[in-house]
């Protein structure tokens, strides 16, 4: 199973996200992450979906998405041809020693400490998905009480989507 990044430009109408997620549910496509955000043109939104599957899934996702009335453009983004970015917030429980070692790791990986008290420390990290994965695997051994990842957003380096 592979992960594929799909970028779609959709009309900014109520229910458009429901249409996309309904399509994924109906066809049995697996979503790893999904982000929706406004674009500079308020008539359109950008949906970035990371889908888990094989080449067959990818082909079907692209074709089925393209059939949605409110989908203006949809394409598969290869990670190397695009600028892909996401952000994660992680809350870790631990005493002063633990919090100190978290700070050290953060310094190495370019993550920021955004909050710290006697019981927990919250770190923020943004970067490419693989960069985030590496960081998360390193801090995996700590007592993580909560984490939240935005999901990938991506912009193609040259191709014009719209």
């Amino acid at each position, binding site marked *: 199973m592979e992960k594929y990044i799909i970028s779609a430009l959709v009309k900014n109408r109520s229910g458009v996200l*429901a*249409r996309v997620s309904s399509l994924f549910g109906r066809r049995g496509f697996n979503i790893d992450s999904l982000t929706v955000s406004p674009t500079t043109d308020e008539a359109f939104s950008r949906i970035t979906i990371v889908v888990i599957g094989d080449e067959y899934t990818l082909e079907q996702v692209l*074709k089925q998405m393209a*059939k949605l009335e409110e989908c203006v453009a949809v394409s598969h983004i290869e990670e190397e041809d695009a600028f892909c970015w996401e952000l994660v917030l992680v809350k870790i429980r631990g005493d002063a020693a633990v919090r100190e070692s978290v700070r050290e790791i953060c310094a190495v990986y370019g993550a920021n400490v955004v909050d710290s008290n006697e019981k927990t420390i919250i770190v923020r990290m943004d970067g490419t998905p693989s960069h985030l994965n590496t960081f998360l695997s390193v801090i995996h051994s700590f007592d993580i009480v909560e984490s939240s990842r935005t999901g990938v957003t991506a912009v193609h380096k040259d191709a014009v989507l719209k």
Partner: protein
Amino acid sequence: MKLNGSQILIETLLEQGTDTIFGYPGGAVLNIYDELYKYSDRIRHVLTAHEQGASHAADGYARATGKVGVCLATSGPGATNLVTGIATAYMDSIPMVAITGNVGTSFIGRDSFQEVYIAGITMPITKHNFVVRRIEELADTVRLAFEIAMSGRPGPVLIDIPKDVTAAVCEFEHKPAAQKRPNPKIEQEQIKKMADMINRSERPVIFFGGGVIASGASELLEELIHRADIPACHAMMGIGALRCDDPLNMGMIGMHGWVSAGRAVDKADLLIALGTRFSDRVATKMGDFATGAKIVQVDIDPAEVNKNIAVDHNVIGDARDVLEALLPMIDHADHTPWKQQIETWKTRMDYKPKDDDSVLRPHQLMRKIDELISKDDIIATDVGQHQMWAAQFTGREKPRTFLSSGGLGTMGYGYGAAIGAQVGQPDRKVVHITGDGSFHMNLQEMCTAVSFRLPVITVVVNNSVLGMVRQWQTSFYGQRYSNTDPHRKTDFVKLAEAFGAKGIRCRTLAEFDAAMREALQADGPVIIDAVVDKDERVLPFIPAGQTIRNVVVD
């Protein structure tokens, strides 16, 4: 001019050429019905017994006429009752516009009386749907709904209109009727490659489906098969696209298709698929269909390519456009050895049911219907054994004369569809072939046929059991007939009379012949209770997950 929402709705429907609405009134659509009363000389409303009947009628009307079918229901249960009909139309790519009322905009989201989020419910079974929250959007929404319903691969579109929008007033101006969006442009290189494959093949087979009927390509199909001398077979949805007595028409393939045709597909070196989606009723085993053949797929919907079957070449386009572009590049050919081979399979392997005039054998019953009606007359079926017998033996050979729920397999589809077809084609005979199981699901529509004096002939192929499921239980579940023998005491003749229709019972072929002749003279609906043996089976059949190589013929 200033009009209210209900007037705008009807004016824009008239603008699209809509002459008939199938529907059922209710609280949220009171304003619309009030206007329908005033417009009754310009637009006909057919009141059904149940909204499901209205949705199937709109579907049957669309299949029989090629126009967009329109149905109308109130909010809540009215809307949910349309759902099965919308899903049926969606699976078979039938153009339909379903209109639902909803509670007023200020009541939406508060679990108000008869409120349901029908746009959410129908999202996966419509091409698109709309909630019209502002009166200013109504007219263009209706126009766009028609455009979407008939463009590309056709399908149903739903418009949900809150009650206050049907009363609100705004400026309205007529526009020309919505037009189909242009079909995909045909790529000459793709056509050339397809032509080369056809011209080089030795054992070609054409496999066509409902797309040929939707695009009106049957004459071009006939031209192609004769020019290139290619035997053709079809999916159930393709019935009517090709003459039955055409020597190159091998008939239906699939789970209950002809063995010789299935074998031809299995042994072909080239399979040309026209407007068909390789459903699991045809390509019964995933990854094992026409394995010896190169496959070329022609479809208007790119998403159908490589969905169920991996193909070697595809052409995206309307079947008619593709065939028009293709024909000039096709060489005249002669595939006599291949045809002779198929002919041998036909003689040696095809299922030949035995006649018995002393009872009613399903194949004889179906052939009798074909014999007594004209080739322009329409057959609508329900779902089950009778549907397959009808598909095999009623000899429909003109487009839009065989209406059947293919993709969804909706029991209860037939009567509504027959009513819609009869309303749309008043000069043709419409025969509704059903089973006692299917008929029980929506037989209340008899009252509709009576009220509107629709001379639909219903033939209930009555084996007193749920035959198709029972047949599977016979073959694969050790004859444990779980809930397929309901011991119902329904007297269809008395039932017909209770509804104000005519009922006739028959048990032999001669009796059926007489009943049909009488029914064909009637000016209102007739129910023929045609009693058949409960152990009659649909043959041949390919067991689930198997291929034509494991077909059962006795």
